[in-house]
């Protein structure tokens, strides 16, 4: 076992924890936080693969992932604020407008 394999295992664990967080928590902010966890696990895989292949492209992908994550957090939190202002709650189960 070297550092790269260990970091892949760590990434799997963190990703699954984030996924379980999305499934179990019933708060929109907690959903966004769990998405951040999952994105970080993906970043860890990118960095590990970059080290594995001795190629810096993976690290650059991490920079782009961080950019997109920042945009996603900003827009998502703006939506959370708008929803809270409109409905007074941000519970996941409350929003079922699109359900037929």
């Amino acid at each position, binding site marked *: 076992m*070297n*550092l*790269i*394999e260990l*970091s*892949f*295992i*760590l990434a*799997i*664990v*963190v990703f*699954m*924890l984030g996924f*379980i*967080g999305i*499934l179990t*928590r019933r*708060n929109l*902010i*907690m959903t*966004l*936080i*769990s998405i*951040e*966890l999952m994105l*970080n696990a993906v*970043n*860890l895989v990118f*960095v590990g693969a*970059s*080290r*594995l292949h*001795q190629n*810096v*492209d993976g*690290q*650059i992908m*991490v*920079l*782009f992932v*961080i*950019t997109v*994550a*920042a*945009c*996603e*957090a*900003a*827009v998502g*939190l*703006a*939506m*959370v*604020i*708008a929803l*809270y*202002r*409109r409905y007074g709650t*941000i519970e996941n*189960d409350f929003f079922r407008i699109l359900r037929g």
Partner: protein
Amino acid sequence: MLENLTGRLLELLPFGFFHFFAMLITLCSLMTILSRNPVKSAIFLVINLFLLAGVYALLESHFVAAIQILVYAGAITVLFVFVIMLLNLKAEAGPRFNLNVLDMLMFLICGLGIVLVAARLATSGLPGVEAITDGSSQALKQLGGHTLVVASVLMTKYIWPFEIASFLILLAIIASVVIARKEEVKK
């Protein structure tokens, strides 16, 4: 004999640090998704991101580690904490434990996936991992270190994605201002 021992210790040092970081990261991730209070979750997320930056540094991605601390732990988490404070959320009533069969099946598949992949990695290792030698790392050092190489590749090969990313950030700023704006009362 003593030099041999020191060399061996220096070889094992990254592993020790890695196990330390990995343990704390797993713990903080668990606390992040288990805390009832969203503020506590956000604080544990900050700790988690700092520790992940440590792991990136161990994997010799120093620039990514710095950006992780600056952007993720610095900016994004402040945004989260700010919104949580703004909304003045109460702690949740508790996770929904009225799982139905579909949820149980999903958890089972997730757990099975974790176990299978971990077992595969633990028993046989990744194909091609053995091929790495320290020579290429030395070559990177001679080029001026990871950060210089990352910067030069980012500014040449990935210049268009870089520009598009800046445009994406601009769009996100406008979008978040428009979405979070207070609706005017129609008369």
